[in-house]
């Protein structure tokens, strides 16, 4: 696992949080603090002061963008150049209680808009910034303001936001249009049946609000990645959902069908939620072919290659973020290991797939 928040030792004084970038030498033109590694290869220098990371094995990369919280002696690694996933966790609050949520809601926010703006502003050309929660659009007005300012400063930035799309209305169309080249909205849908969807997300009326949200996203020409997590609750009706997607979502960028992450609420009654596609792949196969045959760009997230029928493997992508990804010991014998997403760090073989065969 890669640590995304690190404590440090050293006194930076009584100053407010600030943004910093890791450089080889102290001569950048960026108007942010420069952090450099000292010749001892152990301590770092910033603002003419020395600090040491509490975890000795963590090495910061050149080009990393950090947010310092001096009074907590905490560094948040905002952007790592080598990572496939740089994400701001904006809030842990949510208005849905999805039964598979990997990050169950808490009453905590991290709304450091000014710091985020500064940090996002110096990300390299064409970088991808993720924003997730909780539900980011609970702070819709602030979020829109942040996004519009960010792309003004960094027009080549792609921002990928995970949202339940419950809070968009026609008054947002103008703002959504400003954002429609830079922002990709990742929006989950779990069923084409309103009751089934509402039960899964734990909120009455969620489906109807979602459909209204989609209408706003479609009307504003927004980019959308539709997301569906596989569950025993929605697996029997998966074919109907895929038909619904094929009919009404030709405007989306892609449909990501996602395997369940064994984290958070998903672990409660896991055996009643997890769909083992090594035993029952039929509904998944039907859904993928139904959607892709209608021109929907369909992808499978979090499915190790050997857990789906061979004709579905070309739809699998390496989707698991580097910091929480692992392979199993017998993956070493698999000839497709390098193109496989592997497993979540917290995958438990005892309650996982019946057979992990690898590909030989």
């Amino acid at each position: 696992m890669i640590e995304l928040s690190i404590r440090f030792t050293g006194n930076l004084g009584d100053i407010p949080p600030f943004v910093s970038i890791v450089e080889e030498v102290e001569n950048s033109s960026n108007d942010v603090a420069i952090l450099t590694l000292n010749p001892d290869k152990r301590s770092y220098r910033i603002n003419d002061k020395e600090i040491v990371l509490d975890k000795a094995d963590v090495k910061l990369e050149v080009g990393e963008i950090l947010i310092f919280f001096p009074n907590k002696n905490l560094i948040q690694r905002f952007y790592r150049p080598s990572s496939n996933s740089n994400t701001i966790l904006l809030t842990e609050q949510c208005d849905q209680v999805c039964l598979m949520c990997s990050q169950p809601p808490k009453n905590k926010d991290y709304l450091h808009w000014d710091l985020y703006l500064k940090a996002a502003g110096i990300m390299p050309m064409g970088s991808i910034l993720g924003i997730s929660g909780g539900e980011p659009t609970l702070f819709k007005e602030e979020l829109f303001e942040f996004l519009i300012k960010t792309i003004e400063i960094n027009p080549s930035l792609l921002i990928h936001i995970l949202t339940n799309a419950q809070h968009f209305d026609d008054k947002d169309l103008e703002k959504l249009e400003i954002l429609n080249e830079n922002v990709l909205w990742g929006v989950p849908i779990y069923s084409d049946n309103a009751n089934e969807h509402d039960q899964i997300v734990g909120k009455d009326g969620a489906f109807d609000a979602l459909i209204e949200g989609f209408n706003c996203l479609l009307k504003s020409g927004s980019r959308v990645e539709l997301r569906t997590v596989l569950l025993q609750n929605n697996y029997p009706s998966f074919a109907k959902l895929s038909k619904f997607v094929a009919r009404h979502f030709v405007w989306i960028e892609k449909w990501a069908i996602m395997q369940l992450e064994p984290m958070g609420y998903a672990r409660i009654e896991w055996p009643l939620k997890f769909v083992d596609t090594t035993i029952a792949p039929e509904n998944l196969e039907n859904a993928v072919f139904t959607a892709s045959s209608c021109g929907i760009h369909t992808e499978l997230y979090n499915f190790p290659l050997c857990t789906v029928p061979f004709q579905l493997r070309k739809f699998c992508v390496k989707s698991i973020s580097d910091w929480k990804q692992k392979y199993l010991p017998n993956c070493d014998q698999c000839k497709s290991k390098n193109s496989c997403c592997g497993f979540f760090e917290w995958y438990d073989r005892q309650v996982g797939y019946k057979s992990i065969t690898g590909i030989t």
Partner: protein
Amino acid sequence: MSQTDTNIKISKITEHSNLLVNNAGDYIFMNNDNLDNFIKNKLSENDINWLENAGIVIKEEGNFFSTSRDFKSSLRLHTRKKLNYLIIIPTLRCNLTCSYCQVSRADEKASGYDWDEDITRSFIKYVEKYASDDVKIEFQGGEPSLRLDLVLKIVNEIKIIKPNATFVICSNLSIMSSEFIELLDRDDFFVSSSLDGPPDIHESNRTQNTQNTDTFFNNLEFILLKYGTNKISLLPTISDYSRINETIDYFYAKKLPEIFLRPVNYQGFARKKFNDISQDAQNWNETYNKALEYIAHKNSTNKHQIVETGLLIHLNRIFKQRSNNYVDLRNPNLLGQDYLVIDFDGKFYPSDEARMLSRIGLIDLSIGSLNNGIDERKINQLNTKSSNTEDPCCNECSYQPFCGVDIIDNISRYGTTDIKTLDTYFCNINMSVFDYIFKNLSNRNEYFINLATLCLSKQSSSTSIFGGHHFD
């Protein structure tokens, strides 16, 4: 309360089943009783919700389902604005005399039928200025392999200005020189050839003698072995309908992934020789439908499975709103826009058929030249009839969202574009294919559904991807 969308077209598909299609191309089947209740607004709230989900009913203008429908119907009418397919004829000369040669080729030894330095240079400049980055260039003829020096030069120069360009050479495979192999070795270079079936059929239509026939089949074998089936597309022309299954069998035997069954085309020299049969749409339709059944059954028992390209094109038009690129079946079919033919003398034509018609002196359909550019006046004149949304026959037809327009074919057959569409060969042929598809979908014909699944998903799969369309 009127829930029946005025954009819905209803037609009888079988005795018990009706097809309902909206202008975005969403379709369902309804039995007679339900249709009656639907028209009389006697369906339950649940049924109405099902129909809204299917795209057939709009409960409230401006809601998600209506926005989605409007988006899809405009997507169907979207066309490419930039030139991205060029057919060029670096030489009109050919070393064969096929019985239905479509372009009235020139003799191998004739002179004055090749591109010279000037034309080649103007062509490169034209591509640089007007073509899209992913332009595809098709070398036609004549037999372009008679001028591989020119082909090579064009490929090399185009790659400098359009690095993503791809190429295809339409060759009779009579010459397999080291230059040809050098071109085939490239990842961006493909070959297309005619293959009418087993050697005796191919010989009587094309190669004419054993020696030519052997050369062709040897070279074909060489390409298939060395490069695999992705390198080459093989197109049969069916002239003797009674032997169509032999051609199909031969494609299975060669393990080719795709077969495009087309009747002999009523143009070029073929106009004189095959006049009777090519006019007979009905005859072809029966032959074609039987051939599709033959393929569907053969796929069900054979390890190797084949896709029929014509069926694939029609299915794509039904199921993929973005598939508006096939020039023989698209709407609107704007000529001289994304697709252009440049003849051996540098003249522009809107399609290969238009070039042939002009060549045999029926009508001059050239639309400019490398020297003078596009003749906008002529293009605009031709394009007044480029859309089926203004055609009174098509406006009555359930297949309108999926179908296309072919002005050049009408000119070719009837000498005018001013003809009732229902009476045209184009309409008869395509109507028949759509009838065939929807009849089989309505009847849930298992063999057909497997073939259609294979066509659309390029995978053989036991799952049906056509569920959820029956309201009965």
